[in-house]
């Protein structure tokens, strides 16, 4: 597997709307279950970037996040029989990844708050991949605004951005919030972000 190839797939996945990825994942799952070679590879390539973002939103350090994602895939291999509807596979994966991430985060010693972690990347003095990545003005402005939000808001927005329809009941459990307040909290986080963007003269 070539580096260029996985990079391409990666950026491809990050830009696509969740719904497109969900469809791609369902098709790959069906192919894999019908014994088509390469089906599971396609599923892993499509969904791993999503899982990375969902898991990192829980504030896990890089190596722990990788472990969590790997065990999520192993659980899928063992329990694939229990997923009757291929369209459910993406939601099954993100839900399992969040549950595993939450468990890992509450065991806790190696977890780092995502905000500190990410700020460190963004403020790194060394010319690094992150500097190049954030060379984009829009990104920098957006990140400056996201950083003003509470850690909980940052987490919630990252999960919702990558997970088309997170299961609110489980999400509430994970974030120690009453289930009824997830929707309103998300709404508040989003409007704070929009206000911050407008104040900076950007478009919300």
């Amino acid at each position, binding site marked *: *597997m070539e580096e260029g190839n996985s990079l391409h797939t990666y950026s491809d996945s990050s830009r696509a709307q969740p719904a497109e990825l969900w469809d791609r994942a369902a098709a790959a799952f069906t192919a894999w279950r019908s014994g088509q070679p390469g089906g599971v590879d396609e599923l*892993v390539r499509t969904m*791993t970037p999503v899982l990375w973002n969902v898991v990192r939103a829980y504030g896990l350090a890089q190596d722990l996040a990788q472990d969590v994602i790997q065990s999520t895939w192993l659980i899928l291999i063992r329990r694939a029989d229990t997923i009757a509807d291929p369209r459910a596979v993406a939601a099954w994966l993100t839900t399992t990844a969040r549950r595993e991430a939450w468990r890992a985060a509450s065991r806790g010693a190696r977890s780092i708050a995502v905000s500190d972690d990410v700020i460190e990347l963004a403020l790194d003095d060394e010319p690094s991949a992150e500097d190049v990545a954030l060379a984009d003005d829009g990104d920098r402005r957006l990140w400056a605004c996201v950083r003003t939000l509470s850690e909980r808001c940052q987490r919630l927005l990252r999960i919702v951005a990558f997970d088309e329809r997170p299961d609110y009941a489980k999400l509430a459990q994970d974030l120690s919030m009453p289930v009824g307040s997830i929707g309103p909290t998300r709404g508040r986080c989003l409007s704070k972000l929009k206000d911050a963007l407008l104040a900076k003269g950007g478009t919300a």
Partner: protein
Amino acid sequence: MTTRIAPSDDNRDLYARLRGMWSRLDPMPEDLVDDILVRLATENLGDEYALLTLVEHSEELVGTRSLSESRTLEFTDGAITILLRVSPSGSGTRRIDGWLAPASTGTLRIVVDGDEHSIEASPEGRFVFPDVALGRARMWLDPQSDEESGPVRRGFTTPEFEL
């Protein structure tokens, strides 16, 4: 209770910008996907094959010329051992002499970058692949079964190794 609410259209652009930003700010490690695929391939062997582990890897230099260099690789799961001696053969290819211990017959396959060769082991458990291209290789000892008594022995496979 399960409540699922999809983001409304007017927030879609903002979410797309957030996705792009986070992907660039905190990118997934490049080799994560490949690591997972390797792990799943090993996990996905099913019940038919058991994975051997590399226990011994040594290089022998005969004289001072690297052309005459040969390597020995030993894979085992405790019950069965596959010993391979890899030496140069002809124009940039390799000859593989192998032994099964305890001695047994069986079909051995080697897959090098997608090319497959197969051969039968002798009753002494010896086998030779006289001419194999360089590349990433993996060897398989196929399961054996008896028409009357059913499965006699499960199959084995080595992890990938470099030729």
